[in-house]
């Protein structure tokens, strides 16, 4: 056990803190799911990129700082503590980029990563389908081989595609072998959202804005150059994304410790001894998640992988986030009806236990893969 940061980590932290203090917009940007907010968030990404803070853990060749995992967690903590904007490019930099680094060709890396790092191109995740939500392997959208043109033709429908209403490119799995079952015969595709045959229908969320969209594919041609990994190998390729999304990368503790700080500030403004226990409990949960993350970082650094333990992360941060916001709304009492900041945060938090693998699926994973409990009997109804 050693919970101190090294001298170089402390220096990195100080540099990040100083830069953020100077550059984070004083006023929150408009929602990134509005056209105006989307544009401003992309500008912010460009500002970050210019100072090499947009993708700190990437290689320097791609404008990163080769930050260690510890430094990355430290950066995220500083980032949220500074109240910096949400990352409009998060699907790309956190979910897709690790896969491109691992499975992409050199050409793909060179073509996609630089514009991703600057926010020039924003990526949408096209994951679920209407009949394949939790049961992701039962995807029905198809990819038909077109040897003549040297590529594939996509058909079908994706739903809950985050950022797709305004993004430039999308990534997702399609069934390239109609004979194969479930996890087999899927291929991982990258595609521009303005390609011929692509229709994007925004889905209005609880706040009325379109953080998600449905995407329809009608004979959309994708060249071989935009296939990620080997055809038919999409499930294996994708699972590293799922691991990232569920695990460490999307939800660094910084976001929640910063939210806990805001909750404590709210308590200072409107103290209520009857709610003190809940406030402290929410705060401690955020701190516990921070500590747990250091354990995960250590395991990863020692060569382990997140594995099924990523499901513990997902369950914890998503339910913690709901609890933090619910406690704030309790403190606000009747005034909560009129306070848009915590309310918007709350509706956003509510999607946490649902997306990126519902918490029901995560608990199945913990029970089956970590605890070794027997799987459910499938299908045979009654």
């Amino acid at each position, binding site marked *: 056990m050693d919970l101190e940061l090294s001298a170089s980590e402390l220096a990195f932290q100080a540099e990040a803190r100083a830069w953020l203090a100077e550059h984070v917009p004083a006023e929150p940007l408009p929602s990134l799911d509005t056209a105006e907010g989307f544009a401003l968030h992309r500008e912010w990404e460009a500002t970050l990129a210019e100072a090499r803070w947009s993708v700190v853990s990437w290689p320097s060749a791609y404008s990163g700082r080769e930050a260690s995992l510890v430094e990355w967690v430290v950066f995220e903590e500083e980032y949220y503590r500074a109240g910096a904007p949400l990352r409009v490019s998060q699907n790309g930099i956190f979910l897709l980029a690790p896969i491109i680094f691992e499975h992409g060709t050199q050409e793909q890396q060179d073509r996609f990563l630089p514009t991703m790092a600057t926010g020039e191109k924003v990526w949408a995740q096209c994951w679920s389908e209407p009949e394949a*939500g939790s049961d992701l392997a039962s995807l029905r959208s198809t990819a038909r081989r077109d040897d003549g043109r040297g590529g594939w033709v996509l058909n079908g429908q994706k739903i*809950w595609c985050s950022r797709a209403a305004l993004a430039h490119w999308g990534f997702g799995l399609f069934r390239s072998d109609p004979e194969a079952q479930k996890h087999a015969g899927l291929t991982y595709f990258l595609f521009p959202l303005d390609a011929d045959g692509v229709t994007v229908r925004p889905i209005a969320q609880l706040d009325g804005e379109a953080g998600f969209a449905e995407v329809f594919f009608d004979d959309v041609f994708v060249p071989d150059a935009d296939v990620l990994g080997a055809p038919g190998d999409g499930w294996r390729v994708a699972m590293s994304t799922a691991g990232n999304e569920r695990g460490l990368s999307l939800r660094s503790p910084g976001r929640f410790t910063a939210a806990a700080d805001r909750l404590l500030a709210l308590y200072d403004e409107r103290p209520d001894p*009857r709610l003190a226990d809940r406030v402290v409990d929410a705060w401690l949960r955020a701190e516990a998640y921070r500590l747990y993350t250091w354990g995960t970082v250590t395991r990863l650094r020692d060569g382990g992988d997140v594995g099924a333990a990523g499901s513990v992360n997902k369950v914890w941060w998503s339910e913690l986030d709901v609890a933090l916001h619910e406690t704030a709304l309790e403190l606000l009492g009747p005034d*909560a*009806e*009129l306070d848009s900041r915590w309310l918007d945060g709350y509706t956003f938090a509510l999607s946490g236990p*649902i997306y990126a693998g519902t918490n029901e699926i995560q608990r199945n994973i913990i029970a089956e893969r970590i605890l070794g409990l027997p799987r459910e009997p499938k299908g045979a*109804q009654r």
Partner: protein
Amino acid sequence: MRFALSEEQAELASTVRGLLAKRADSAAVRAASVSPAGHDEALWATLCEQIGVAALAVPEAYDGVGAGFFETAVVLEELGRSLAPSPLLATTIATQALLAGGTEEACARLLPRVAAGEIATLAVGDGPVLDGDRAATVLAIRGDDLVEVTGAAATWAESMDQSIRLARLDLSEATLDVVGDGVAAAARAELVAAASAAALAVGLCDRALGMTVDYSRERVQFGRPIGSFQALKHRMAEVFARTELARSASWAASYALAEGAADADFLVRSAASYALEAAALAAAECVQLHGGIAITWEHDAHLVLKRAHALAGLGGAAHRHRAAVAL
């Protein structure tokens, strides 16, 4: 001893439910919520004229039906199920406050108008007032007095739950006439607000659970309706159990309030504590078990969730009701 709706009460519930099923489906509720009036005026007129919902708890001497608060609560439970925006909550609180603290003159002048369907509200404290900008009669508690407010400037305050109408009142130019005892009126209003929120919450539980059960019977994943998965079943069963107990507590509270029973205060605290927590749970499970579609504007799950939160604001948070129970 008979813990059940009477034949007349059951008939009332079923009439209101039938009317709301026809006239306050999801589309109608959404349209009414964002209409200038903030509710469906024609529906309110029908409820008042054909069923007399505003007149139910007004004594016959003031042109009312003379039934009592329990009957009003029966209607509120149905309104809770439908999610329809309705002036009945504000009007009921104002009516009960007036009956508890108003002078004979004020009751005789104002209550017949309420019974006929005019919207009334009561302002307690300085916060936004329910239906403050659409009420024909605005009462307020000022010190120890119950006052009638005329000429207040009302500004709509947009709330998260669009089916609830709040407005800030600026009384600087308004006329305030004393119309009764503010202490008695405020005490009654607090209990009536809590019992009414409980009744609305019980109806909301039914709605949330019904939607969740229906969806989970239809939605197939992993080759099975998701409602066949035991973890989900148990959570819906828990919502059902809490709804049942909350309904018992709510009925007992409304009955005790209507009868002026000695334990009315305790029973109202109990009902509000239960029903508001049950509604919060029912709404949370409704969102979670619907998955992604619950987070969309088009689906009703978020209306349920917002109503559950709004009720805690209007009726007082569950833990505050428990704190008000003397140990």
